[in-house]
């Protein structure tokens, strides 16, 4: 495939002209011998319009990328059964056919060869007419797509069950159905010299901050890459602090999440071929927000939000705390606990640091293994790993029982904040190393460094900790807790400052 692309690029350079000629045979030759040379998946359907003055025509399309029945019924059939006016020539003839013969909605004329070739690869059909140096592009894409289903990585108990699919047009529709405002805007871009991936930048014009959309568009336009196969490519190529593993661009498979973020003043980027949409700016506290918080009552929603912060602290700090307290400051532990820990470690041959690192590594191996395997096998492997291996390791005195508890609680807590899972692993390892060198002091120093790093970060010009650090009453309402909807009257200060008001009710909803 890659060789074919390379060959094609060489052939393209041999094209003497950039535009169609009036000779149909010459145009067919260019397409067959230069643009689509060697591509057997391109369909060339030559036909002739009806008498008394028949004209030679051709339809060119990519096989299985168009709705063939649609083309036959609404393009081929009208052109073949209907007589084309002999008085019209060239562009006026093309316009005549577009206005009077072809019965489809998305249709345009085009004369640029490369644009026509791109159109074919994007699923359009092009119609060339003898004597015309313009072609008609009929957009009648049609290929098999995955049906809309609930995303497995973002399942909810209560809330919409729709998830994005790999088709950009469908994804755009899913978002537009939630935001029917005239303020909702879409900017189409194309990225990738070879993949020519379609990218849509979507936002609410009345809410989004000045300059943000242009900033995003400029950054995407600046990408010079051969192909974009997933939104992750774009995320990494346009994010602030590219070497920092902390996410500064959000991603989601859910249209409701994209709509909610756009409503707050963010910009979303949809990429053709992937169900993952990008949203920006992305703040640290967004990792702790889940769409279900907003669908359930605000008290359980706030409880779950707080739980995520606690779990993040647990998954990041617990191994380092275990190590520093056990190895440097056992006097801070309750006497009975320290005795139990000492007894459990009595026959373990490794130092506590090796124990912590080895168990962390084993867990990550099990997780990675379970993740890539088919679901039933993966589940079985998780059970083997978690129960059998853990129990056997303790019985064989390879690790102490408290260490298994530490690893288990660390792992379970990590799964509560999936957006920060990878970051938490790195933070955890850093803190463990700091704690192994300097005890509690080292751990606290590491935490301090991490807070400083977070405080210094930006996402598209917005401070990464802005909502948490600003201490404004309105900003804090959607951070550690999820305040009731009737009290969240304003959009986040740093994101939706152009039009902050989002709730007009002065009372608590429609209470009587």
């Amino acid at each position, binding site marked *: 495939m890659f060789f074919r692309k390379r060959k094609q690029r060489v052939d393209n350079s041999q094209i003497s002209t950039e535009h169609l000629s009036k000779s149909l045979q010459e145009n067919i030759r260019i397409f067959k011998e230069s643009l689509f040379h060697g591509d057997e998946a391109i369909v060339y359907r030559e036909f002739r319009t009806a008498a008394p003055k028949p004209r030679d025509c051709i339809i060119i399309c990519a096989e299985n990328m168009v709705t063939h029945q649609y083309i036959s019924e609404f393009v081929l059939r009208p052109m073949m059964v209907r007589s084309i006016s002999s008085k019209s020539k060239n562009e006026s003839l093309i316009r005549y056919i577009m206005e009077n013969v072809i019965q489809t909605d998305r249709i345009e004329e085009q004369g640029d060869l490369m644009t026509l070739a791109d159109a074919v690869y994007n699923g359009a059909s092009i119609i060339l007419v003898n004597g015309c140096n313009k072609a008609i592009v009929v957009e009648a894409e049609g290929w098999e797509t995955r049906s809309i289903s609930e995303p497995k990585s973002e399942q909810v108990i209560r809330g919409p069950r729709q998830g994005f699919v790999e088709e950009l047009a469908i994804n755009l529709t899913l978002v537009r159905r939630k935001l029917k405002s005239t303020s909702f805007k879409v900017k189409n871009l194309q990225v990738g010299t070879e993949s020519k991936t379609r990218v849509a930048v979507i936002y609410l014009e009345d809410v989004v901050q000045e300059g943000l959309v242009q900033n995003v568009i400029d950054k995407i336009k600046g990408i010079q890459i051969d192909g974009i196969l997933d939104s992750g490519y774009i995320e990494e190529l346009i994010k602030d602090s590219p070497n920092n593993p902390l996410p500064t661009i959000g991603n989601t498979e859910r249209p409701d999440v994209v709509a909610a973020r756009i409503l707050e003043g963010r910009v979303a980027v949809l990429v053709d071929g992937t169900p993952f949409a990008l949203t920006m700016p992305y703040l640290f506290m967004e990792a702790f927000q889940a769409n279900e918080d907003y669908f359930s009552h605000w008290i359980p929603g706030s409880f779950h939000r707080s739980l995520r912060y606690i779990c993040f602290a647990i998954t990041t700090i617990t191994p380092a705390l275990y190590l520093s307290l056990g190895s440097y400051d056992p006097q801070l532990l309750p006497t009975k606990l320290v005795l139990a820990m000492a007894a459990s470690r009595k026959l373990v041959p490794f130092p506590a640091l090796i124990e912590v690192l080895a168990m962390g590594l084993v867990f990550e191996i099990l997780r990675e293994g379970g993740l890539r395997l088919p679901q039933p096998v993966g589940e079985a492997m998780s059970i083997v790993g978690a129960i059998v291996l853990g129990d056997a390791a303790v019985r064989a005195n390879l690790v102490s*029982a408290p260490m298994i508890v530490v690893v288990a609680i660390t792992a379970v807590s990590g799964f509560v904040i999936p957006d920060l899972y990878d970051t938490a692993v790195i933070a955890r390892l850093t803190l463990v190393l700091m704690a192994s060198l300097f005890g509690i002091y080292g751990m606290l120093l590491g935490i301090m460094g991490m807070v400083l790093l977070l405080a210094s970060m930006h996402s598209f010009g917005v401070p990464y900790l802005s909502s948490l650090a600003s201490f404004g009453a309105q900003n804090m309402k959607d951070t550690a807790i999820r305040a009731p909807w009737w009290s969240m009257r304003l959009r986040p200060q740093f994101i939706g400052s152009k039009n902050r008001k989002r709730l007009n009710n002065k009372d608590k909803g429609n209470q009587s």
Partner: protein
Amino acid sequence: MKKFASFTVLMLITMAFTGCWDYKELELLDFVYGVGVDSIDPEFTLIAEIMKSVGAGQDADFQSVVLSTKGRSVSSSGIALQNLAAMALFWPHAQVFVVSEEVARSGVLPAIEFLIRGADLRSSVYFFVCRDCTVEELFQSAPVFEASVSQHLANLVRLHEDTPIFFPQQMWEFTRTISKQGISATLPTVKLVQNGDDEVAVIRGTAIFNTDYMVDWLNEEESEIFCLIKGLKHRGRFVMDTLVDGQDIPLTYEIRGNQAKTKIDLIGQQIKGVIDISLQLDLIEIQNAKIDLLDPQLILFVEAQLNAAFTRRIRELLVKLQGNKNCDPIGWGQLLKQNHKEVWRENMSDWCCILADLDVEINVEAKITSTGVTGKSTPVRY
């Protein structure tokens, strides 16, 4: 760059002074539960009760081991103790510190100085004096439920809220008291009592100190009254012979509340101490006495007897305390210093003489607030 360099230097300097360099593996430590000093002259005899785990992992059990060594100082004895144990001893989990009567009478400061200033032992460790036994004998006694005597003593201190018959002191409280003017330190005393074939440690009585020298004991009853004056005894039970229905019957009372206040009054040039005690009591056990507990006259009569009995007991305790020269565990001198600084300065040098003859007014108001669920004694018919 300059900021980064400053930050790095600052962090390195801070780290170098944290004292967090002593990495240790838990399994290589032996945890000291209790420490004691039996003698300081000619050599320090240091006793430690150490927790030893028998078995490992889920099958682990814990046993206490008592080790004793001698040395020219407490710290050198500690090193000797570690050599004896052949394990690194970990001191911060020690819960009790005990000195023998011999050490208490010769001054406890040499025994505790290293521990007060050092970081090895927590300042919240409970401090006791052994009575009628040595520290080694105490640590080798057989607690009924706990694996160690130290834990047994720590449990007794925790029960103190329910049975306040002694005045618990942590190491920091003792050292703070001996460094103050106008008040003398006290320590609870520990003794061994027979329980079947074994001896069990109990906390009974109080040791009275003049600076860091022990000068006298208070017995169990005296300690209770001492706790009452100090305002500690908010609950607890006591039995008192009470005249009802023409005969002395041992009635049992439960203390429900105690508001005790000690103060110094100046009447002209005369210094006078005042003890005001207000007690709320429940009459909880009358044995076989045939009395009507709903009779208000009877209750008033019993309350009057309680007032008189408590006043008498307090007076007896004060006489005993004032008999020890220069010893002021109630803290009359401190009260004078706090409230009448000029008078304290004038009388500071003669305070021991003034204290011996200090006139103390005692006001006790005992109130019976409850007499149980039924108002009458249990009827028995023949």
